[in-house]
């Protein structure tokens, strides 16, 4: 029934023209996107871009002002129960009942999903194992570490084996180790499930998703496979430092085809050094800087590429559109 227009017949998520305002604040200004079955898509944007609002509408928590959201071809607004049965949702900030034991809460989640008897027990066993919750199974949720609480949130979203997993900022607030564990879990789930996740940090989406949808001020600004977005290739930012004057550094970068972004304080306080932030075309650009420095006999003392920040990425996308 939903295979009418674009996005392909196998779209698990099909969102059209979504608009939502909170009083005078326009959170979504007409967003369209689809998520194909079996894919992992990252919904990327700065805080306040409208990511969470879009997820809340997709999961049926909020009503949209205009537009439609379909999950597995089902209109969320018209058939909320059927749509909700197909979604597993980890809301932002992972709200849970702290006084309940992990086992009790997940049993409730399973009952809420209509599971009973042996089916419920089997489902609970499956998610406990999959999310590694056995160690805290009988502990009140409020007494679990943040990492475990996040797993509980993930487990409740998985208990009914949903077609679509919606994860809103799944690693927000976790320490680096916990975040890495969470990413590993999500990556594993992504192999067998359709996953839509949001994030305000680029490396997270790079680590997990095949495709990124970038939104900014309630509008979609890009929607493409990560490789095509050029997040990892074109526009790689790198810090370059040489022993020598600023002029030598400028010449070096120019010859290597790198773009000067800004001068930076040099690391050793040595007057004989110069440092800058430059933009290069991926690894090739880095190689060219190193080769050129060697050829010109300029002592290269630092070449430190870093992941493009979200801010610069959006700036570039904006420039591309203009």
């Amino acid at each position, binding site marked *: 029934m939903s295979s009418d227009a674009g996005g392909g017949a196998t779209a698990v998520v099909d969102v059209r023209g979504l608009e939502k305002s909170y009083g005078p604040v326009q959170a979504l200004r007409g967003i369209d996107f689809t998520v194909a079955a079996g894919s992992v898509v990252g919904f990327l944007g700065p805080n306040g871009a409208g990511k969470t609002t879009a997820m809340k509408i997709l999961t049926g*928590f909020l009503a949209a002002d205009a537009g439609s959201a379909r999950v597995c071809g089902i209109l969320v607004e018209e058939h909320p129960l059927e749509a909700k049965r197909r979604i597993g949702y980890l*809301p932002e900030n992972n*709200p849970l009942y702290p006084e309940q034991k992990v086992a*009790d809460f997940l049993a409730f989640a399973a009952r*809420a999903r209509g599971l009973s008897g042996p089916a419920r027990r089997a489902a609970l066993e499956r998610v406990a194992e999959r999310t590694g919750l056995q160690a805290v199974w009988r502990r009140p949720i409020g007494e679990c570490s943040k990492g475990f609480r996040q797993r509980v949130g993930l487990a409740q979203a998985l208990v009914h084996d949903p077609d679509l997993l919606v994860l809103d900022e799944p690693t927000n607030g976790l320490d680096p180790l916990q975040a890495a564990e969470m990413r590993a879990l999500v990556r594993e789930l992504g192999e067998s499930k359709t996953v839509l996740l949001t994030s305000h940090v680029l490396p997270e989406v790079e680590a997990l998703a095949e495709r990124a949808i970038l939104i900014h001020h309630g509008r979609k600004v890009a929607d493409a496979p990560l490789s095509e977005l050029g997040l990892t290739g074109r526009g790689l930012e790198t810090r370059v430092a040489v022993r020598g004057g600023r002029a030598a550094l400028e010449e070096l970068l120019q010859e290597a085809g790198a773009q000067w972004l800004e001068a930076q304080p040099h690391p050793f306080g040595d007057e004989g050094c110069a440092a800058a932030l430059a933009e290069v075309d991926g690894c090739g650009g880095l190689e060219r800087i190193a080769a050129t420095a060697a050829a010109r006999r300029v002592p290269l003392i630092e070449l430190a590429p870093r992941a493009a920040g979200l801010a610069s990425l959006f700036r570039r996308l904006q420039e591309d559109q203009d």
Partner: protein
Amino acid sequence: MRSFVIARREWRSAFDTPVAYVLLAFLPAVLAAFFFVVGSFFDEQTASLRRFFENLPMLMVLAAPATTMRLWAEERRSGTEELLMTYPFRVRELVLGKFLGALGLLALALTFTLGVPFTVAFLGDLDWGPVIGGYLGALLLGAASVAVGLFFSALTRNQIVAWLLGVTVLLAFNLIGIAATATAVPPWLSALFLDLDFGARFASIARGVLDLQDAAFFGGVAAVFLCWNGLVIEARRWS
């Protein structure tokens, strides 16, 4: 029924926190204390529970909102309402589930007071008719009071505010009969006030005559507040 999934969680949650234990201790203890110690039971020399049930409506004013104040306010404050609302429940199933959970707890607290009539029956010749009527009336009064309390829990994310609003409105429902006796009130209005008075309705049931009208009144009040509750929850999706 899907509502029982919610009722069950609320019930369990109440026993995971001090809420249930405090209520189960408070209601029987206070009722028994007022009856045997403060009241004139031993002076009157009659094996009757009339005075026992007289104290019940005022106690219900305090106890019912205490069982419900947390139910919506805390979900909203902690954000767990987002889980509830994205699980495949209808709003009416959620509202009814929470109502049944709280009413169940109150009913359990009431059964804990059964020690009082059994003591009286041991001391004298107790007429059980009015006792059964009194407990039935208590359950009906409890249902209406819980529905009122639950509605006010849905209006705020602060439990104390929810409790205070519930107590205030229930107090009004219990005192409105007094206003009916004021000379400035026209007769038609005083009749209406008397009709709305929780205490008067309860007293007539507690006398041992279960009038269908009184039962329908409490059921109607509960239904109206539960419907409003559903509307408030539904409306929040559009905020």
